[in-house]
């Protein structure tokens, strides 16, 4: 066995190197063919990049919820997409009321603040309730159990919201202030995109500081290291876990409003796909790692926006945008082949 091991490694290495070379070749050829075709102007590329940044920022915000909970409890909260949806969908009714009364456009900044606060409140409540009702009673059970519960909770929340608000797709009220574009270093950025990017960046940086500098943040890291020892050191583990869910919920709630402002539509099912994508982003960056989740979100968003046009147009693929999920998930697969723990994760094999 001892002798066979290095040999097996080397074969794996060779396959990986060949694969990497092939990949780089395919990417390079596709991209250069696309660029020489000249279908897209520089302005179009820039606008795709901005779109990708906005989408990536939103993914990053949602991904925080997955990665924080995983970092502390080692469970994957698959109902997190619904936490995001609950904020966005319930805030729609506030936004509509504000819009009908004219307040939304008279006091746009204040309105956005109200919407964000309300959405964060709803999402935080849902996230904390989830922890209390669905996960806490199962703490200490095998890891598959909370995973299945999470899926059940996700379906429950989806259908509750469908029951309460109907299955209709609704256009989110638009704020006049956010119409139009601004020019930043030659990039034409929609004002709503600017709000999304700036808001997401601010919240993510805020979260870094919170975890890095505050007492609660330190307690969270301690609980993530070892729950028992943390509790021996006088940390209230339950409290820290609730705080973690609350922070994840808050960020998801903020993401909900920003998502609705950016994409202009809400419905009860809107949390499913972003939930999966954000989870992907968390895994891509290295689940459990907060910086990784932010990075993973950005990479995923940029890939989805730019990669179909950049890589596939050159190969004359008829409608490249239908394949954007294929590209995004292929990248996930390849990253995990080369770095099983994700970009910033530890490479130690994780027992699930």
């Amino acid at each position: 066995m001892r002798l066979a091991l290095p040999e097996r490694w080397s074969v794996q290495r060779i396959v990986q190197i060949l694969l990497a070379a092939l990949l780089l070749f395919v990417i390079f050829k596709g991209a250069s063919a696309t660029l020489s075709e000249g279908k897209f102007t520089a302005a179009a590329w820039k606008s795709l990049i901005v779109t990708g940044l906005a989408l990536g920022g939103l993914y990053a915000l949602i991904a925080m919820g997955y990665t924080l909970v995983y970092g502390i409890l080692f469970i994957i909260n698959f109902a997190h997409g619904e936490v995001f949806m609950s904020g966005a969908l319930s805030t729609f009714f506030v936004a509509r009321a504000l819009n009908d009364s004219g307040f939304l456009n008279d006091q746009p900044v204040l309105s956005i603040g109200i919407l964000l606060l309300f959405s964060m409140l709803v999402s935080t409540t849902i996230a904390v309730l989830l922890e209390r009702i669905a996960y806490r009673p199962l703490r200490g059970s095998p890891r598959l159990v909370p995973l299945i519960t999470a899926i059940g909770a996700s379906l429950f929340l989806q259908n509750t919201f469908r029951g309460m608000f109907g299955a209709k797709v609704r256009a989110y009220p638009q704020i006049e202030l956010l119409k139009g574009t601004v020019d930043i270093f030659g990039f034409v950025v929609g004002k709503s995109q600017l709000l999304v990017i700036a808001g997401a960046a601010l919240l993510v940086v805020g979260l870094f500081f919170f975890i890095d500098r505050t007492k609660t943040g330190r307690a969270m890291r301690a609980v993530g290291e070892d729950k028992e020892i943390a509790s021996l050191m006088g940390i209230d583990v339950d409290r820290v876990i609730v705080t973690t869910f609350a922070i994840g919920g808050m960020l998801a709630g903020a993401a909900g409003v920003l998502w609705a402002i950016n994409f202009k539509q809400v419905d009860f099912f809107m949390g499913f796909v972003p939930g999966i994508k954000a989870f992907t982003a968390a895994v891509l960056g290295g689940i459990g790692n907060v910086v990784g989740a932010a990075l993973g979100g950005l990479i995923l968003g940029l890939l989805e926006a730019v990669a179909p046009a950049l890589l596939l147009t050159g190969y004359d693929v008829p409608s490249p945008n239908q394949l954007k999920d294929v590209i995004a998930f292929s990248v996930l697969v390849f990253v995990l082949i080369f770095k099983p723990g994700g970009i910033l994760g530890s490479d130690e094999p994780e027992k699930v």
Partner: protein
Amino acid sequence: MRKPKWFSLVALLFVLSLVAAACADDDDGDGGNGEGAAATCDADEFGCVEVADGDAIQLGTLLVITGENASLGLDSQYGSQIAVDMYGEVAGHSVELVNEDDGCAPEGGTSGARNLVSNEQVVAVIGTSCSSAGEPAAQITSDAGVVMVSPSNTAPSLTDPATHQPFYLRTAHNDKIQGAAMAQFVGEELGLTTAATIHDGSPYAEQLQAVFADTFTGEYGGEITGTEAITVGDTDMSGALTSVAAASPEFLYFPVFVAEGGLLAAQGRETAGLEDTLFGGADGMLTQDWVDAAGAANAEGTYLSGPDLAFGGDFYEAEFLPAYEDAYGEPSSVFHAHAFDAATMVLDAIAEVGIEEDGSLFIPRTALKDALFATTDYEGITGILTCDENGDCNPGATISVSEVVDGAFERIWP
């Protein structure tokens, strides 16, 4: 994991009793009493539906009745219900609808069709709403010998000789008509020369934009500057929009459904290069729900094609609509009349081929299908219907174009 032994014994007994029950059921049904009916039923490839004395005739519906496209399917379901209510009894039997959901997707069409054909009392199916659901559903119902008439499938492939399923018909227009009409509207009426299209990969949208593109370039000398596709369930449309915007077309045609259509209209208004582009869609979006999904401001000025509801004859205005509005309020979509015609055609055919014996009604399945395919010069609400061998019953269908004005649809052409 120590379970008492008796637990597995009970489980085994339970399974065995299920198997026994399933086997026992097979003995009923084939009994076919009565000589005349028995001979016809035996001769029919798929046998007969036997409606016992006092039982209702069951008509299945397979329409999209939940989710964001429910306005499309519910409208057809209500139209079918009005037809059944107005028709009264058929050969001494009342009629009831068995409603299934097609989900506007292949999965829904498949499971809904399977549910309906597994119920031996279902004589015929009114459905599906969406062509994507229609493709698998037509196959399943045809394999089981259950005739299916769609009030709103419009994809050309469903009645194309190469892909047509033998028990499938439709009262809706074929998109060869709708796509060509839209191309005529854009090329002649609006006088535009460049257009781009976006579809969602569904047979309906993909084929409709293809017919539009062919006619627009072939007959009206227009140019298609780009064809893009999105995926159903996508939220971010910027990739496809940026791609078609590269050529700044005068017209952007996206004949998709409610949710994606709303996103395309809303995000398209902000895409650089589409500032002066006129938007257009088709009957999958011709519902107030789409205006709500896009936002009235974004929907404003969009041209949507659909069946022309200015039908000849007074029945529609004087009797059908009042009955419909009494029961269900304003129609939410545009295929209620097609559903009415489909259901009435089926009930007529049942009355024609059904054999009454000792109070029971025997309906031979193949004969029912043949009677429907033999429909000629049938005076329906939607026009004079004549079914061809591929199941197209409404060759004379006319298309109108509506424009969104102040958040409501206004018929502007022809």
